[in-house]
């Protein structure tokens, strides 16, 4: 399949309005503005598009939940916080194709009746912020944003909002709190943002890649989109491939492409003829898979059936030299650091997991620690306000499921068997 989401990023000047227009940009918006909002919504529903930010929620359905109360202004927020380690798929879109995102947002705003929008961009992407500021100014100048868009009476104001380095602000209600000028602590749901979101108003939060899919759906039609990849999770998808592969990078493939094809055909396989040990299929919030899963398709349903999750499509490859205890320890350090601290099981539990993993990695572990790890994980999962905590136990439960003997070797030998041999 030829790249569509990433088709413009190699073109010099792709981030400018002039090049975007030359390449056929904003034509989908013209088409969408000839359609009634409900027709646009229906088209996105029929396309089967599911959110690319991690949870995979059907986009059309989410839009459909938005309050219809005409007296309350609606907000559309773009989640450009991209903080899941191993994920860098939104970055080329933000840096090289900002108008595709703006066009996607205007079309989406038309569908849900949103008058105001913000792009919540992580502070770690300062270059993208420059590009977006310029693109937004151009779009205002040329009448693609603001009042009476393209003379069709649509009003949509869109601004950039810079985050400040907190992974949790990628969680949609934390993102909302952060835009409101507060600490990024997730809200208890319900109420859902569709009814009570930012500034108390009905709000839709969508990922960058999700929004960039929207012009494609309008341009080529829902049927076309729905026919790419598996029926229950269709469409093109950008996979961020990293770790022990010859050619790491972003690869756009149809949903359902086997892990093997991404890793070997695109990524060139593992360097130095080493063997594969483990693959994280959807970012560290998703449990590891192994060589036995290489023929599993990269789509929401197939990865779930294999015991993990597609997440945002961040595929991290680890070869045989990698110590799984060290991996789990590093990731728990991350989750502990990023826990907002609101829920005790998450705040304390991730710290305990980090400590126990640290002592096993340092050769000071006990066999009982393995049950303790699972026990603490059980007491975290499903007992918190947001899904950070559910993701945080994945590195522990996933590695223990497939690599328990590595943990035992650490404990029995009183040292890390990979020390000195690890590639990093």
């Amino acid at each position, binding site marked *: 399949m030829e790249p569509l989401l990433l088709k413009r990023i190699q073109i010099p000047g792709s981030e400018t309005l002039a090049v975007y227009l030359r390449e056929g940009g904003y034509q989908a918006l013209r088409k969408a503005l000839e359609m009634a909002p409900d027709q646009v919504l229906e088209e996105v529903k029929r396309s089967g598009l599911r959110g690319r930010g991690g949870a995979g929620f059907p986009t059309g359905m989410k839009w459909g939940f938005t309050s219809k109360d005409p007296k309350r202004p609606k907000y559309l927020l773009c989640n450009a916080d991209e903080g899941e380690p191993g994920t860098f798929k939104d970055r080329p879109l933000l840096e090289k194709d900002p108008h595709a995102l703006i066009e996607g947002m205007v079309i989406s705003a038309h569908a849900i009746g949103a008058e105001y929008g913000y792009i919540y961009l992580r502070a770690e992407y300062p270059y993208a912020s420059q590009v977006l500021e310029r693109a937004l100014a151009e779009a205002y100048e040329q009448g693609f944003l603001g009042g009476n868009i393209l003379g069709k009476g649509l009003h949509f104001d869109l601004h950039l*909002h810079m985050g400040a380095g907190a992974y949790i602000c990628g969680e949609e209600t934390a993102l909302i709190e952060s835009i409101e000028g507060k600490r990024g602590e997730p809200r208890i749901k319900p109420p859902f943002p569709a009814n009570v979101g930012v500034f108390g108003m009905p709000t839709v939060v969508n990922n960058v890649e999700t929004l960039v899919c929207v012009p494609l759906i309008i341009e080529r039609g829902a049927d076309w989109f729905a026919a790419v990849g598996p029926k229950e999770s269709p469409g093109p998808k950008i996979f961020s491939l990293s770790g022990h592969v010859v050619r790491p990078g972003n690869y756009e493939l149809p949903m359902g492409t086997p892990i093997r094809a991404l890793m070997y055909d695109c990524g060139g396989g593992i360097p130095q003829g080493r063997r594969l040990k483990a693959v994280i299929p959807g970012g560290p919030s998703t449990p590891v898979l192994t060589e036995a899963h290489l023929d599993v398709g990269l789509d929401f349903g197939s990865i779930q059936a294999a015991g993990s999750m597609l997440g945002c499509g961040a595929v991290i490859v680890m070869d045989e030299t990698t110590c799984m205890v060290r991996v789990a320890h590093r990731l728990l350090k991350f989750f502990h650091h990023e826990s*907002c601290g609101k829920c005790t099981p998450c705040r304390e539990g991730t710290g305990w997991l980090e400590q126990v993993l640290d002592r096993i990695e340092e050769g000071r572990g006990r066999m009982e620690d393995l049950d303790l790890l699972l026990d603490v994980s059980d007491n975290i999962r499903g007992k918190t306000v947001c899904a950070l905590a559910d993701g945080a136990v994945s590195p522990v439960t996933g590695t223990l499921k497939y690599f328990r003997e590595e943990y035992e070797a650490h404990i029995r030998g009183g040292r890390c068997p990979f020390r000195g041999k690890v590639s990093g």
Partner: protein
Amino acid sequence: MNQEVPTKTVTFSETMLRQVEEVCQRYPTRMATLLPVLHLAQEEHGWLSGEVLDAVADLLGLPRAHVRSTASFYLFFRTTPQGRHLIMLCDNLTCMLHGAESLLEYLSRKLDIPKGGTTPDGRFTLIPMECIGGCDTPPAMLVDKDFHGNLTPELVDEILKKYA
């Protein structure tokens, strides 16, 4: 005899105040302007001292406690003095698999500061980071607003020469 301790009064430049006005146009509430205004204040003052935070609170008419508590939540808002240049090196998973930890040790030795520390000449602050979205070119770092990937000790030496 009581002598008044002169308190350092924090002022913001005309340019920044104009930018703040613009920011205020973009949000329906005063509170929502806080993050953008903290970014502006930090650009201007280098870091966010208690005095700067209080001045921001007063400027926006927000409770000082809210401003301090909010600023302390975010890694990019620096509430201690910083070097002129921030070296933000990622040591999360993919970068770790490609030697980020030893690179961090190398930098710490080279600059003779602990992680999080600032060189005595005030030139650099060394900050270990979570993933910065450069996992296709690991290990990766940001120096201030510039991204650098595929780092080696030699390359880091070269790069740092550019930051006086």
